[in-house]
């Protein structure tokens, strides 16, 4: 499918925003400004953006512990996200969720998730809402190769097929579940094949190539919107950082990260592809880069200056009414 000039720029902006956001989070985390844990998405941008480019705010996604990229791709406010990571007032969750629970229901973002395999059952619920109320919306579950081994994921896939729900299961295989290779932990070495075994169309996409993910997602999402039921996509991708920020990454091969950054950088691939094809020129892309750098800088300035939640927030929002 030929993407418009505007759509290409939007996709690029979204991917660059994720990359710069994560690089900056790594920097700020190292300086001690961000409490807790962060799991960075850099390297996987083409997956989130390739899929979410087809979604509107009433379509839902559920994410993983590695959720910043999905949040940005789905339209969450970057400053609100940074405030949340810094545990400040005005954060998307008021500083009560943090990196692992970033959510924005108004943007159709059902939350990052601290539980591996926590999201897929929620996604089939969002898909059930869409089907029951005939909204024409879809719901997308982002899961990693690690989450692909969880029983909750299997249950969600089976029920999505049984009830013919408009759900898409995106498995981002970045090669590692925590510190263990996917080639060790995924018994059949074929996540898409396993999804197909549940009775849904399932394909593999190259996560280094935005266009490949975008096309696979288009087919799956159109099928779901048209009442054709669930699909799965295994996106083969890579992460440039560790499982979490500060991970010593003793499990990595020599020069592995350098090689990934040199050979498998989806941003570099995108840039080369669109400039060589004459779809966008380098100047336009550089302008996006500059705009994004400013956006991230502003977000960090706001997050550093922000106030922590008031002590009264400890006790609010447990119930709607009690």
């Amino acid at each position, binding site marked *: 499918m030929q993407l418009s000039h505007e759509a290409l720029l939007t996709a690029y902006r979204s991917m660059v925003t994720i990359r710069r956001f994560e690089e900056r989070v790594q920097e700020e985390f190292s300086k001690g400004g961000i409490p807790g844990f962060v799991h960075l998405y850099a390297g996987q941008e083409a997956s989130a953006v390739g899929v979410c480019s087809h979604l509107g705010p009433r379509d839902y996604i559920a994410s993983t512990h590695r959720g910043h990229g999905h949040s940005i791709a789905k339209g969450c406010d970057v400053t609100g996200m940074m405030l949340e990571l810094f545990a400040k007032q005005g954060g998307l*969750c008021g500083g009560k969720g943090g990196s692992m629970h970033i959510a924005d229901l108004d943007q159709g973002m059902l939350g990052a998730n601290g539980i591996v395999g926590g999201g897929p059952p929620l996604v089939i*619920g969002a898909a059930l809402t869409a089907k029951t109320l005939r909204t024409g919306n879809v719901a997308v579950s982002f899961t990693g190769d690690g989450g692909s081994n969880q029983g909750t994921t299997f249950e969600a896939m089976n029920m999505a097929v049984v009830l013919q729900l408009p759900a898409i299961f995106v498995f981002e295989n970045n090669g590692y579940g925590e510190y263990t290779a996917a080639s060790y932990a995924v018994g059949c070495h074929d996540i898409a094949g396993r999804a197909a075994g549940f009775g849904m169309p399932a394909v593999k996409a190259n996560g280094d190539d935005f266009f490949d993910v975008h096309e696979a997602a288009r087919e799956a999402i159109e099928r779901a919107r048209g009442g054709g039921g669930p699909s799965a996509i295994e996106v083969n991708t890579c992460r440039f950082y560790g499982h979490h920020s500060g991970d010593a990454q003793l499990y990595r091969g020599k020069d592995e990260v350098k090689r990934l950054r040199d050979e498998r950088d989806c941003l570099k691939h995108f840039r080369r592809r669109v400039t060589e094809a004459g779809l966008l020129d380098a100047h336009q892309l550089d302008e996006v880069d500059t705009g994004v750098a400013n956006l991230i800088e502003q977000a960090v300035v706001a997050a550093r200056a922000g106030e922590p939640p008031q002590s009264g927030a400890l006790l609010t*929002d447990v*119930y709607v009414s009690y």
Partner: protein
Amino acid sequence: MPVKTMRQALQEALAHEMRRDPTVVIIGEDVSGGAGTEGGRDAAGGVLGVTKGLIKEFGESRVIDTPITESAIMGAAAGAAVTGLRPVAELMFSDFLGVCFDQIFNQAAKFRYMFGGKARTPLVIRTMVGAGRSAAAQHSQSPYHIFTSVPGLKVVVPSNAYDAKGLLIQAIRDDDPVVFCEHKLMYDLRTEVPDEAYTIPFGEANVVREGDDVTVVALARMVHYALDAAEKLGAEGIECEIIDPRTTSPLDEDTILDSVERTGRLVVVDEATPRCSMATDIAALVADRAFSALKAPVRRVTAPHTPVPFAPSLEKLYIPDPDRIAAVVREVHGFVQ
């Protein structure tokens, strides 16, 4: 007023709310039953028939038969609840929380808080509790205290058909996740139940019997055993005040404390196991907030700290009975420092 079983009362509550609100759906294993069979749908209506017949009025899209897949049911219901439906999900036996607790405990219960107050999760989980049918260790427990211990969940433990209907309607209209615990031996108990819809607010205990000597707090089926005990004790000149909290989260602390202030004595009767339970929770509440009123130690009448046995003879020993309750009340009443 017509007399109905708790099963009928629950079904009426579901039907009322499904008629009133098109976003109310029922989802679970065999909630109609018979999907894909020669005999066809509505073969069961849940294992004890509470939802039987509803599919005829509301159809397959609102009475949703699922595979045996508790995590997917609970997760789908939670996900549907935050996106615009009002699901009543059935966790057939509360014992099965073991295979799906993450979706209840880490997901549904925490959405509102961890998302900074932006989520509403109008989810009801209907589930069976209780021993007494030799259903053994994995189909007989009463784990409402486990749900009660989770911030973000509300927990309902009705003791009669009238309350069950009003509390279930309240649960469906509530915007928080509610675990609704139905004692499996009480489905055929009858009380007067109005035909129309009505609600009973959460956190308002029912004073089932008034008395000045000993406060007895009892839950679900134990309310009836406490009443049996109180009748015997009344003949001996000991007047029990029996309080049925009806909901364990929120808990009507004031009604319990006010009663103990008057009687100075508390016995808690709970079919659940004794450790970290509603019985210990209520005992702690009174020790903390009404200590000076106490004339005797707080006593708990509970199941032993064991799994539920299969053998009817052992199960009979497991479940608190009116004689045990009466014996403990007598001890408390006769206590001398």
